[in-house]
C-alpha cells in the first residue's frame, strides 16, 4: 500500500513502512481483568449513590464495539435540585467552615487515589470513550491527578491569589463537561473549585459518564464531606438544569460554542460568575525555516490526537508555499503509518469516534469539504467492522471560505492551505471566529515569538503542540470562550477579590 513510486518531492523517503507490507504490529491489547464496572450507576448526591427520582436511566456504550457497558441514572430537574441543595448545605455548613489547610488535604487525597487507581481509570476511559489506551494512560489520567495535586496546594494560599486584595470563594459551582477528555475535564472543573472553597454539581457528558462516576467513588473513598462534590448524569436537559439553577453562583461549561452562547444568554444580567471553554479551529503554521520532520510530527499530534476530538486541535494546516510540497508529502507518508482501531491496543494511534452522532457529523463534513471543492486524501489503513471509525483525512487546496476551514469538525480531519508571507499566514490564522489555540513551526526564535504574539488565541505552541499542564492557563479568545482554566488564572475563575481595604 505504500508503493514508493507514489513518492513526490525531493526528500520523499526511499523506503516507507506501513501496516500492510508485512511490518505490521502484533495486537497488544491492554487487559481489562481488574477493572470493576457495575451494570448500573446512580447519581452521586450528598455523598451517596442514588437512583434518579423518576427512576429513568440511559445506556452508555463502548464506541469501539457498539456494546452497552452500563445503565446510568438520568437526572431530572428534581435530582439537580437535590444536588444543588446538598452542595449549598455542604458549602454553608462544612466546606466554608473548614480550615484551608484541611480543605487542601482532602484535595491532595483525591490526587493520590487517582494515581493509585490510574490503570483502572485509563482502561475505563478508553472503554467508555474510545480513546487510545496510550493517551488515556499517559495523558488523561496523569494530568487529572496532577490537576488535583496542583490546586490542592492553593487551598491555604488564597491570600496570594489577588495582589493587594483578599479572596473569597463564590459558593456553589454548576459545571458541565464534554466527552472528549471525561476525567481530565472533571478534574479541571472540580479541583480548582473545591480547593478555592466552593462546592460543586458536575454533569458529565452522556456518552462518557463512567470515569466521573468512578471519581465519585474516589471522592467518597477519600472521605470528602458529603455534598462538596455532587455528580449528576444525563444529557442536555440535565446540563441545562444545572447551569440555569437559581442557587448556582458560578457556571463553568466546556463544550460547543453554540451551547456556550445559549448559556451565556441565560446568564445575562444575573451577575453570576461564569467560564466558558468552547470550540476552536486552530491553525498550525509551518514556515519555510521549520524543521520539517518535527513539524510533521507536530501536525499529526495536533490533529489526530484523541481522534481530533480536541477543542484546541490544530485542525488547519497553514504551510508556507515554498515548503508545501515537501511537508504535505511527508505528512501523507506519516499518516499512512497511523493505526486506527481497538482503543485498548497499545499500538493504536487513532481510536474510535466517540459516538454514532459524532461520526455522522464528521462524515457530513467529509461530504461538505468535497462538495466545496477541496481535495480529499484519506489513508488506506484497515478499520474494524463494528464500531465508529474515521481514517485520518486531509482536505488539500482548501480555501478560507470553505466550511471545513471555518467550522469546527471535531474529528481527524485536517484542512490544508498555503501562504506566502508571514503577514499573510498570520492573517489567515486569525480569520475565523475562534481563538483558542495555535501552533507555529520555525527554527527562527525571533519569528516564532513574533508570530505567537500576533495570533489572537489563548494558547500558542511554538515548535510543539497539544501540551497541557495544570500550571499553564488554558482558554480562548473571541468565540472560543471566556475565562481560563489552569494556573493562577484558573484559580481566579473560582474566587472573587474582596473589596479594597
Amino acid at each position: 500500500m505504500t508503493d514508493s513510486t507514489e513518492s513526490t518531492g525531493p526528500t520523499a523517503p526511499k523506503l516507507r513502512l506501513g501496516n500492510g507490507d508485512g511490518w505490521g504490529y502484533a495486537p497488544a491489547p491492554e487487559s481489562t481483568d481488574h477493572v470493576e464496572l457495575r451494570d448500573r450507576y446512580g447519581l452521586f448526591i450528598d455523598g451517596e449513590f442514588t437512583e434518579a427520582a423518576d427512576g429513568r436511566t440511559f445506556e452508555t456504550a463502548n464506541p469501539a464495539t457498539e456494546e452497552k457497558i452500563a445503565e446510568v441514572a438520568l437526572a431530572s430537574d428534581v435530582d439537580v435540585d437535590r444536588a444543588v441543595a446538598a452542595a449549598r448545605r455542604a458549602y454553608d455548613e462544612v466546606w466554608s467552615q473548614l480550615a484551608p489547610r484541611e480543605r487542601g488535604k482532602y484535595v491532595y487525597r483525591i490526587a493520590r487515589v487517582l494515581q493509585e487507581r490510574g490503570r483502572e481509570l485509563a482502561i475505563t476511559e478508553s472503554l467508555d470513550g474510545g480513546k487510545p489506551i496510550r493517551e488515556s494512560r499517559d495523558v488523561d489520567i496523569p494530568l487529572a491527578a496532577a490537576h488535583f495535586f496542583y490546586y490542592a496546594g492553593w487551598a491555604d494560599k488564597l491570600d496570594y491569589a489577588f495582589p493587594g486584595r483578599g479572596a473569597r470563594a463564590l459558593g456553589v459551582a454548576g459545571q458541565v463537561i464534554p466527552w472528549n477528555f471525561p476525567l481530565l475535564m472533571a478534574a479541571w472543573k472540580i479541583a480548582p473549585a473545591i480547593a478555592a472553597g466552593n462546592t460543586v454539581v458536575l454533569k458529565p457528558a452522556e456518552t462518557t459518564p463512567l470515569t466521573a462516576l468512578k471519581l465519585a467513588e474516589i471522592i467518597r473513598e477519600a472521605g470528602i464531606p458529603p455534598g462538596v462534590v455532587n455528580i449528576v448524569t444525563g444529557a442536555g436537559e440535565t446540563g441545562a438544569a444545572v447551569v440555569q439553577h437559581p442557587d448556582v453562583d458560578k457556571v463553568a461549561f466546556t463544550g460547543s460554542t453554540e451551547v456556550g452562547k445559549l448559556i451565556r444568554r441565560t446568564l445575562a444580567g444575573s451577575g453570576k460568575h461564569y467560564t466558558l471553554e468552547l470550540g476552536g479551529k486552530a491553525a498550525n503554521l509551518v514556515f519555510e525555516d521549520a524543521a520539517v520532520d518535527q513539524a510533521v510530527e507536530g501536525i499529526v499530534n495536533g490533529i489526530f490526537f484523541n481522534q481530533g476530538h480536541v477543542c484546541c486541535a490544530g485542525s488547519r494546516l497553514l504551510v508556507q508555499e515554498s515548503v508545501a510540497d515537501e511537508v504535505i508529502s511527508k505528512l501523507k507518508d506519516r499518516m499512512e503509518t497511523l493505526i486506527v482501531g481497538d482503543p485498548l491496543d497499545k499500538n493504536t494511534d487513532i481510536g474510535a469516534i466517540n459516538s454514532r452522532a459524532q461520526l455522522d457529523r464528521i462524515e457530513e463534513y467529509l461530504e461538505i469539504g468535497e462538495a466545496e471543492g477541496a481535495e480529499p486524501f484519506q489513508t488506506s489503513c484497515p478499520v474494524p467492522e463494528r464500531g465508529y471509525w474515521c481514517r485520518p483525512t486531509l482536505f488539500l487546496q482548501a480555501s478560507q471560505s470553505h466550511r471545513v476551514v471555518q467550522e469546527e469538525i471535531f474529528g481527524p480531519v485536517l484542512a490544508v492551505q498555503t501562504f506566502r508571507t508571514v503577514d499573510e499566514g498570520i492573517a489567515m490564522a486569525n480569520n475565523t471566529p475562534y481563538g483558542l489555540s495555535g501552533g507555529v513551526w520555525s527554527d527562527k526564535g525571533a519569528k516564532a515569538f513574533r508570530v505567537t504574539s500576533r495570533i489572537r488565541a489563548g494558547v500558542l505552541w511554538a515548535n510543539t503542540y497539544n501540551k497541557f499542564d495544570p500550571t499553564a492557563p488554558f482558554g480562548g479568545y473571541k468565540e472560543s470562550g471566556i475565562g481560563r482554566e489552569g494556573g493562577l488564572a484558573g484559580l481566579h475563575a473560582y474566587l472573587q477579590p474582596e473589596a479594597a481595604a
Partner: protein
Amino acid sequence: MSEQRPAGAAAADRLPVLKTHKVYVGGKFPRSESGRFDRALAPDGTPIANICRCSRKDVRDAVTAARGAQAGWAARTAYNRGQILYRIAEMLEGRSAQFEALLAAGGAAPDGAAAEVQAAVDRLLHYAGWTDKFQQVFSSVNPVATSHFNFSVLEPMGVIGVLAPESPLLGLVSAVAPAIAGGNTTVVLATGSQPLPAVTFGEVLNSSDVPGGVVNILTGRSDEMLAPLAAHRDVDGLLLCSPDPDVARSAEIEAVHNLKRVAVRPHEDWAEVQSPYEITDLQEVKTTWHPIGS
C-alpha cells in the same frame, strides 16, 4: 443661550464666541452623520448647549476608527503609553478651570467641581504609572512538568465599547484610562445627563499625543446607540457603567453574538474606583509554550 454659557463670561461690550460641541472620532471632531441634535441642560432644565445626537451609523464609524487604531496602540511600548497617559493628565490639569466651570454648570458645587477635576487628573496619573507595571504583577512563568519554557502574559482585548457613567468627568476618566492603559481602544457613549465634560475631554485627548481612534467619544441617547455597539461583531469587550440592571442585561444579550467580554460597573460614586483590576478586567491571558532543548 449666551447667558447660560458655563465659561468665558462676556464683558458687557463684547459678544462671546459660542462653542459648537461636536463629537470625537478617529482624532477628528465631526458632527453626527445624522444631523440631529439634543440639548444639554442645566439641572434646572435650562438649555446650556446643543450636542450631537449620534446614530447607529456614527457608532459604526467610531468602531471602524477604534479598530484601525488598535494594533498600533497595542504595539506602542508600555513606557510610551504611560507617557501619553501622563500627558493627558498634564493637559487636563492645564484646563482645570474650564472643566470646573463645565461641572458647575451641570450642577456641581464649586468645591466639588474643583475636587472632581483634581481627582480625574490624579486618576490619569495613577494609570499612567500602571502601563509598564501591571504586566509584571499579573503575568506568570508557569513551571510546567515538561521541558518547555511556558509563560502567560496579558494582552489587550482589542476594541472596548464603553457606556460612560453618569459621573461626567471622574467616572469617564476612571472607565477610559484603564482601558487604554492596557492597549485597548475605545468607543465611548457619553449619554449621561452631563455630556459636555466628555465632549471637552475629547479636546484634551486630541492635544495629548493620543493617536486618533484610541478614544472615540459619542454623545446622544443610549437607547439608540448601546444596542448596535453591544451587538457589533468587531467590538471585543464592553464596559457597562450603569447602575441599571436592565441596561446591563439587554447589552449583555446583544453581546452574545460574538461572545464579547462584559464588565459591569454599577458605581454611582467613582471616588474609589481605582485599581489594577480595572486594567486586567479588560485583558486576555495568552499562554505560550516553547520547547527547551538543543
